[in-house]
């Protein structure tokens, strides 16, 4: 498998409604804007608590954009689509720069 341009890691803790919603929101955004260019890895900290340390996870859900650099972190259920797009540098804010 070739390395996708967008490497995204979603940290959750158990299959909570919020975790499910976050994953659905993420998939939907990626399908719309990054089709064929992304991979999503879901890490369930309930199963692998030790993995929380590496990315310094405190809030759940946390989305970490590993690629492309720079590393970006977002917390929340990703319901705010616009902010997620800004966070992923897919669109710029009105007053911001690309």
């Amino acid at each position, binding site marked *: 498998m070739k390395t996708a341009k967008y490497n995204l890691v979603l940290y959750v803790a158990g299959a909570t409604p*919020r975790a499910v919603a976050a994953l659905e929101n993420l998939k939907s955004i990626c399908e719309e804007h990054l089709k064929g260019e992304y991979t999503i890895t879901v890490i369930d*900290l309930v199963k692998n*608590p030790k993995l*929380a340390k590496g990315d310094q996870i*405190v*809030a759940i859900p946390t989305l970490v954009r590993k690629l492309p650099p720079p590393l970006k972190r977002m*917390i*929340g259920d990703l319901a*705010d689509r616009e*902010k997620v797009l800004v966070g992923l540098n897919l669109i710029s804010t009105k007053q911001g720069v690309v």
Partner: protein
Amino acid sequence: MPKPRINSGKPNPQLAKCPTGIHGLDEITLGGLPRGRTSLVCGATGCGKTLLAMEFLYRGATEFGEPGVFMSFEEREKDLAENFASLGFDLDSLIKRDKLFVDFVRIEPGEHQEVGAYDLEGLFVRLGAAVDAVGAKRVVLDTIEALFSGFKDEAMLRAELRRLFNWLKDRGLTAIVTGEKGEKLLTRNGLEEYVADCVIYLDHRTVEQVATRRLKVIKYRGSMHGTNEFPFLVTAEGISIFPMTSMGLTAGVSPRRLSSGIPGLDKMLAGKGYYQGSTILVSGSAGSGKTSFGAHLADSVCRAGRRALYLAFEESEPQLARNMKSIGLDLQKWLDKGLLKVVSNRASLCNLEMHLVLAHKAVKEFKPELVIIDPISTLSAHGDAYGAKEMLARLLESMKTSGITVLATDLTVMDENMESTEVGISSICDTWIRLSMERQGHERQRRITIVKSRGMAHDYATKELLMTGKGMAIGDIRGNGEGK
């Protein structure tokens, strides 16, 4: 809003305590922190919160067989280990042996974007994993207030904090959370709202160029505790708190007598000397023989094979040994045998509180039957404004309660001032002996008067105190006239 009525129905006849092992703290709290509960330790930056919290875990792991988790929000694992190594706390060794788990949780303000609803389950997962990893009984969160700078959703944060404290309680963990001093509240973000059981406040003040650390138990639900501010030191072995415990008059009163080491004086004291465990005050002007007086008693105690501690504030150990040799007292012999210990600290070296902490520590470690404080006046002169006298009195009282005989010397400049310099401590002294210098013809003579001595028919006459090459002796006043 009416107060929610919570009645767990669980009887709590005796609050279980979790000993901290921190010198003095368990005495103040009558046994330690509330077991299975969370305590808040708060204070300004640099007040010693992290130290107290870590020592709680360190002692727990090394002395009470209770592993601990230290969740640090400020310092990295490596920095913590380095800082505590300087205090002789080998954290790495504890970590290797699974007695301690240190987790640095980095929270950088603005390093993430908030895009929808979230909670802090990640923190719970990490804490849970850490607790399971070492089988922790104790937990420290230092300082959890860092969360407030990292997350914007304060309502969520507060709900999560409440959940966290319940989580700790449900698992029966004895925890310390630390909090930075706030403007109006005890802590910047009002952590005290969540911690109902025990709140400890640390303070670090600099008064007259002398830094003093103090500890106060603000709240301890369901338990008696000392309410004063207790000075503490950060020593080579961690925190040392001077408890000033007012243990009441529970000391067993000893009918046993203790020779003063001066034959004629024993005779004045109803023929048998002091009571063991009593407090003796020896006051007098410069050169009236106070130090020699104390040395005689020390010699007498050591001769009986018991330990004496000499807290010297004006002389060093060699000076004291040399000077006493000149009047025929071989203190060196007792020093060599380990029966006598001289702790020599210049009074101006540190403030009174520190002296008291050091004294308390020395007493606890050496376990003497006699403590000589020479002179007590240097101490009280240094910290009058801060209730120092009261503390001094408490130190004497605490030694008395432990059955330790105490002889304190007090320098009086003029007889007229006696009342003011001694009023603070003379009342708790059982025996008060006054030494003075009198001009008799062409020579100056030393005089001795027993002002009071509880529980015995002592001599009321003023006698002459003689210095000989074989020690002090008591004689009748020579020359004409009847003394004063």
